């Protein structure tokens, strides 16, 4: 007997539940690293899945679902913040070779709050690449696809971002103490 419309809809809903179960945690963590607010991160995560429910059928390559979800979430984040925040652009020097030495004792003392606060203090340019780096869900190429920037730029931003993170955690202002983002005037 051929499946009817209800069967088809049930299968679609089961697929959706499977997708949510698999990715909602990491998507939320990525969203939180961008927004730093629980409510905003929850909204972004939910919106990403609802966008999938509406437009996901357009994706022909099923192996790219995960990258599609992260790309969509990042895109939603940029869209929401576009009218609120000006992204200052800073020309950054190459990665400083004199990287801070992180003592093992210092590393062991780090708790989640400290790490998240430190990630939040990263320059805007570095936050998403560094968050995706530590989530370890994507290759560098996939990170480049998600952020819509060249592979070489991804590598550079990750290196610079990690360097800045290490300096923040060692209370060393270093070369990347760029001003924080400012609200748009008017």
């Amino acid at each position, binding site marked *: 007997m051929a499946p009817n419309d209800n069967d088809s809809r049930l299968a679609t809903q089961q697929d959706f539940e499977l997708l949510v179960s698999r990715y909602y945690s990491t998507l*939320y963590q990525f969203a939180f690293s961008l927004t730093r607010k629980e409510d905003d991160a*929850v909204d972004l995560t939910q919106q990403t899945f609802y966008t999938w429910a509406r437009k996901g*059928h357009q994706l*022909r390559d099923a192996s790219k679902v995960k990258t599609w979800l992260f*790309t969509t979430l990042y895109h939603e984040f940029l869209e929401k913040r576009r009218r609120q925040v000006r992204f200052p652009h800073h020309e950054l020097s190459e990665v400083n070779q004199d990287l801070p030495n992180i003592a093992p004792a210092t590393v062991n003392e780090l708790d989640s709050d400290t790490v998240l606060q430190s990630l939040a203090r990263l320059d805007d340019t570095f936050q998403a690449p560094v968050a995706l780096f530590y*989530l370890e869900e994507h290759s560098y190429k996939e990170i480049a696809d998600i952020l819509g920037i060249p592979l070489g730029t991804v590598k550079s931003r990750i290196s610079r971002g990690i360097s800045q993170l290490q300096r923040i955690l060692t209370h060393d202002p270093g070369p990347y103490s760029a001003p924080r983002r400012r609200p748009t005037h008017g």
Partner: protein
Amino acid sequence: MDSNLAKEILLRYRPGTADADDPEFVEALEQAKLDPELARWFAANQAFHITIRDRFRQLPVPAGLKEGILAGYRPAVIPVWWQQPAFQTLAAAAGIVLLISVALFWSQPREGTDFAAFQSRVVRNAQRGYAMDITTTNLGEIRQYLARQGAHADYVLPAPLEKLPGDGGAILRWRNRTVSMVCFDLGNHNDLFLFVASRADLPEAPSTSEPQFTSIGKLTAASWSRGDRTYVLAGAGDEQFIRRYLSP
């Protein structure tokens, strides 16, 4: 490779991931074996990464998030009835009707291949539901993809469209001719659709770069020609809305 360069590369080394076998990492790891100071720094750096990664993954996910997402799920209405087995019998019957129609078609004067028919077909296709061949926000990647497939990729975008993020692209067919489709993401789940065809393939296509407007279903379409190409830009809005994306 010297130790400074190796350090810069190893700064972003993630063991056990898809990138770990990248030749640049392999070479940098070899350098670490030769330089004890680099090796000590690398060990400390890896410990740092593991700690940050673990703390990051410990970020608690709000209770009820998953249930909240599932509760808000509304299945999309997707016109893919031809893929459902229940319609296969109907499809067979439709095939017979189609054969009759084809016979009638060839016995009648040829259907017009005018520009209006083309424009109506591609814009209605966008409204009915379509599949993209590539999904990316990067307009350059969409153009490169179309070029690789032999589709029209030499199109000239109006300046406002250049500033929009892409949503994806696809290659359509019209009278056995190729049509490139580029989708732009306007946010809030709205898209703009740009269709690019060869001007020579479209009798009665607009002769100038001055856009002509028409409503097709729920969308408004602007069409114009430039060089050897004819363009159709369609979106959900009125003429004023579409004009915003045609000139600065």
